[in-house]
């Protein structure tokens, strides 16, 4: 099958430090990919290169067979490549509902053939808030939210852009067992609607139950990529996680 996202020989360095070393990853439409790796292994840098926040020095990112290199992040978002941030970055001066207005106004309405009226935008925002369980907080400011609610807002904002590919960068860090299940079922539901999801996570229970395929980054290199159970038995992965 034709890949939705194709990352080829992607390289990124910060000064003398090689953050990503010739990474190849392909994601099929509708797939659920888990991306794991120890701290500092380059997961977030990879996300930043895919979404355009950082520029990769070598290699290329293709999305729907279109070369992404050189495109600014907002254009990638408009093409259907949406991401949430590891540390939530809400718009502080706006209410929770207004935070979700932004991607609808600037991404969904910027696509050819779609123009949501104000009433439709309001309805969509309400729907999204219901989905993530923030409906009661819609008029609050982000500073009134708990850490968990902040993460839900971050995810909802990425969802509001109506993406084809959603990259969730550690959306579950610091959450309780039940809350992780909430977010997982949300992601599975999105996936069932046809959205491809890349999940970057440290919580192995979540990654293992969610992912159809698992890729492992260690020190800027991809060391394994395949069926989750198999990948976890890979001696190199075990060594990276547990030491010799």
């Amino acid at each position, binding site marked *: 099958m034709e890949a939705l996202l194709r990352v080829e020989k992607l390289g990124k360095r910060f000064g003398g430090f090689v953050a990503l070393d010739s990474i190849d990853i392909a994601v099929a439409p509708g797939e659920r990919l888990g991306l794991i790796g120890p701290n500092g292994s380059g997961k977030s840098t990879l996300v930043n290169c895919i*979404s355009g926040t950082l520029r990769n020095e070598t290699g290329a990112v293709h999305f729907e067979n279109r070369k992404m290199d050189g495109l*600014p992040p*907002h254009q990638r*978002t408009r093409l259907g490549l949406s991401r949430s*941030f590891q540390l939530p970055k809400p*718009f502080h001066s706006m209410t929770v509902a207004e935070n979700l207005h932004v991607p609808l106004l*600037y*991404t969904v309405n910027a696509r050819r053939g779609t123009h949501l009226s104000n009433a439709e935008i309001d309805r969509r925002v309400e729907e999204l808030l219901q989905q993530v369980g923030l409906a009661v907080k819609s008029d609050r400011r982000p500073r009134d939210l708990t850490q968990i609610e902040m993460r839900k807002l971050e995810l909802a904002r990425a969802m509001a852009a109506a993406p084809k590919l959603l990259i969730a960068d550690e959306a579950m860090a610091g959450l309780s067992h039940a809350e992780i299940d909430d977010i997982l079922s949300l992601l599975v539901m999105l996936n069932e609607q046809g959205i491809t999801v890349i999940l970057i996570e440290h919580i192995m229970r979540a990654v293992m139950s969610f992912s159809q395929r698992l890729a492992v980054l260690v020190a800027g290199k991809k060391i394994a990529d395949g069926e989750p159970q198999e990948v976890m038995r890979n001696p190199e992965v075990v060594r990276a996680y547990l030491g010799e």
Partner: protein
Amino acid sequence: MRTWMFWLVVAAVVACIFGLSRLVTNDYFFFAAYVVLQYVVMATAWNILGGYTGYVNFGTAGFYALGAYSSVVLHKLYAPPMVVLILAGGLVSGAVGLCMGYLTLRLRGVFFAIATLALAIVLETLITNWDYVGGSRGVYIIRPAAAPFFHGGYIQYLFLVMLILSGVAVCIARSIEHSKLGYGLATIRDDELAAEAAGVPTLKLKLIATVLSGALMGMAGAPLPYYITYLDPSSAFNLSLAVNSIAMPLVGGTANWIGPVLGAVFLATVQQIATVTISSALNLLFVGVILVGFVVIAPNGIIGWFARGKRRRQG
């Protein structure tokens, strides 16, 4: 309130103020009021980039002076009517805003502020060395003997011009605030990376903000040569102008259009009164003391103060 309704209300307020001013016989009132209104335009213009978008511009005097000096050039060429001078001033300063924005908007925070300050200094050096507009000697502008449209001194005409201009500036600021553009600018102020990720074309919006802000400042400066009749670089590029244009929105509140207006009316009036009653040299001291006072007592300006009182009453 709908945008067109707001424009009507502002038009009515402008008409009222002008009507009342016809009762004033002392010409000095118009001299002073012109300055206050000019600061309403400057503070409002600064706030489009500084308040809405979060980019602090220290180069306001540069944009203002460009407006003034483009008037000087046009006056020497063929002395067109005031509308043309204002539009030309806006065009020149807007264009410089676009170039400056393109070069400097990749900088953030302090670095952007320093770049804008440098721009004002570069412009001042250029003007000082340009003989056609008087260079460092300055230039005398002989304004028309009579004002067009109505009987009354020329200064009253300039007052009317600045009054209309401040009305226009306020309307533009408010329209931005309640538009898609306003949303976009606010996301840039809050978090630029998140704004991009949400699909906001940040560079484009920042350029729109610098152009609008710069153009309004140029427009505010355009009538200046006719106001003071002798223009030299040190008065056009006056540092107090830059300080005031920043202090006024901060004192009034940067969150919406009314803040800069309140701040400008308050601070500029205090300065005008102080100039007459105490000493003209004390002007900036007043600005400094008031600014320090507000930073301590009401960090969100007059607007923030009222909003806080309202919240408290509501419990």
